[in-house]
């Protein structure tokens, strides 16, 4: 049997990996010329299930705990397990207590430890929360690595195309079209996220840093080549137009508060992505007439795509059964 995956973003590629490792032939279709061109390419890439728990359901923590292991296996060498550092300006120090009350898996650290973890932040903050179990990756590199691994496994890609490959009949179709599914999926809405890339060699960070603020929380994720991803807003709209001046101002202001050297950084890229979300902001594997859909990844694409891909694979294969016999159609397979 062959499964067609529509969409080569983080959900589609994770699904392709989970299915192909179970011996299912997979083809991937995407209108874009390369993989990961949607919201995936603007993701923070933080594998931060504990921090996300601050404003997310318990399920985000439980489903996300194994994500770092999954990415390490799917894209070896791309995962950095250095934890997350959560800081606040002195006058917003109460935000740290609030954040601590909503999360777990952290250690309180003082100025000395902050300086040991991130020497460039030494002396700037008196206390912080350190989440040692968390990890991060560069979404673009991780997607490229995953793409290469899938090619190696024999997954066929049809990029730059909207037509179904005519030479194969598919026993199931899995829709992983991200924001494009908003128009056709009941209950799905768009949540706009804006981000920018700064480049400076004046400072370096080893791990994602989250700056708490009552109104403009922000995170800075270090990338290669002295780059820093700064994000991200959460705006209730499916407008994917360019970033607003206000958001840029807030980002730069907050980044400057983390370290004044960001004031001299170059702004090398700005981006906007629309994250599809259900009312509870949790993703789902949906049943469709011709197969399934993975929908509503919200801001948790890299954190929860592995869990969704696994759920999909279990639905397709049946938890205790071998994959479909090669000749059975999808529907027969589902009702065996």
């Amino acid at each position, binding site marked *: 049997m062959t499964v067609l995956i529509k969409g080569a973003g983080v959900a589609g590629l994770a699904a392709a990996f989970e299915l192909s490792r179970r011996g299912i032939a997979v083809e991937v279709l995407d209108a874009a010329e390369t993989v990961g061109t949607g919201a995936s390419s603007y993701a923070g890439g933080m594998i931060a299930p504990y921090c996300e728990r601050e404003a*997310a359901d318990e399920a985000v923590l439980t489903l996300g705990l194994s994500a770092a292991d999954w990415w390490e296996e799917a894209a070896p060498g791309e995962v950095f397990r250095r934890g997350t550092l959560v800081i606040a300006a002195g006058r917003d120090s109460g935000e740290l207590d609030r954040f601590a*009350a*909503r999360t777990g898996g952290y250690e309180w650290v003082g100025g000395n430890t902050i300086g040991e973890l991130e020497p460039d932040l030494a002396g700037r903050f008196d206390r912080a929360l350190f989440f040692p179990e968390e990890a991060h990756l560069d979404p673009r590199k991780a997607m490229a690595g995953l793409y290469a691994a899938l090619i190696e496994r024999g997954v066929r890609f049809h990029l730059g195309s909207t037509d179904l490959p005519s030479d194969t009949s598919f026993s199931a179709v899995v829709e992983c079209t991200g924001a494009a599914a908003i128009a056709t999926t009941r209950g799905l809405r768009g949540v706009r996220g804006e981000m920018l890339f700064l480049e400076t060699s004046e400072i370096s960070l080893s791990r994602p840093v989250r700056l708490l603020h009552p*109104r403009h929380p922000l995170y800075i994720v270090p990338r290669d080549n002295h780059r820093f991803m700064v994000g991200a807003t959460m705006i*209730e*709209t499916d*407008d994917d*137009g360019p970033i607003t001046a206000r958001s840029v101002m807030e980002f730069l202001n907050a980044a400057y508060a983390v370290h004044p050297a960001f004031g001299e950084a170059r702004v090398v890229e700005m981006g906007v992505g629309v994250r599809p979300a259900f*009312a*509870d902001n949790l993703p789902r594997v949906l049943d469709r007439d011709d197969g399934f859909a993975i929908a509503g990844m919200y801001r948790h694409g890299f954190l929860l795509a592995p869990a969704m891909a696994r759920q999909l694979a279990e639905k397709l294969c049946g938890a205790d059964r071998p994959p479909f016999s090669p000749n059975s159609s999808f529907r027969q397979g589902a009702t065996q």
Partner: protein
Amino acid sequence: MLTLYGQELGSRMLLGTSRYPSPAILADAVRQAGTEVVTVSLRRETAGGRQGGAFFELIRELGVRVLPNTAGCYTVSEAVLTAKMAREVFGTNWIKLEVIGHHDTLQPDVFGLVEAARILAGEGFEVFPYTTDDLVVAERLVDAGCKVLMPWCAPIGSAMGPQNIAALRSMRAHFPDVPLIVDAGIGRPSHATTVMELGYDAVLLNTAVAGAGNPALMAAAFAKAIDAGRAAFEAGMLEPRDMAVPSTPIIGKAVFS
């Protein structure tokens, strides 16, 4: 019964819709509180002037009255324009008017507020101004056509609770017939009870509920606290005394023997 611009409301709790963990949790909080009015910020949710789409649909599906606000406006013209957009999007003349004077504290620009209130009232809006506890500003707002006043009790989002009880008392005494809603600064249910005991007509909350560990449960707690404060005000409370006063007569007790 609370009456705001001719609308009778059973609940004295108004709830903001920002920064909940999810729209589903927001909906749950609205249900748990039994709130009948929610505020919606038009500005951040409509980047590019589009109509907020799905999120506004979710708000409409709550089945409660929407009080759009002009959050994030720093000038009179911005606030007036946002109010007009809100009227189109939500089909209501109600507008919570915010003109922010200070980026950091979000303290209202009371001069711009009065001017914007006058313009909007002249265009048929029913204005709910977010103001300080300053009596003269309040008088100007009433002159400008506001039939409801919404003073802060502490800076927005600060969760400090009432910082100037004397000013709140004085405002209540000066405007016995104007519905007064404490907007901003409430952190916990006891704060809400305190201002309701002062005779305030209602409380508007957002962060205290949205930022709670369990927003729906906190919404329910606030609803009870607001009802308790109101009932206490209506029942009439004892004033504190300097000396103990026993609740049973002491004549004939052993103390005199």
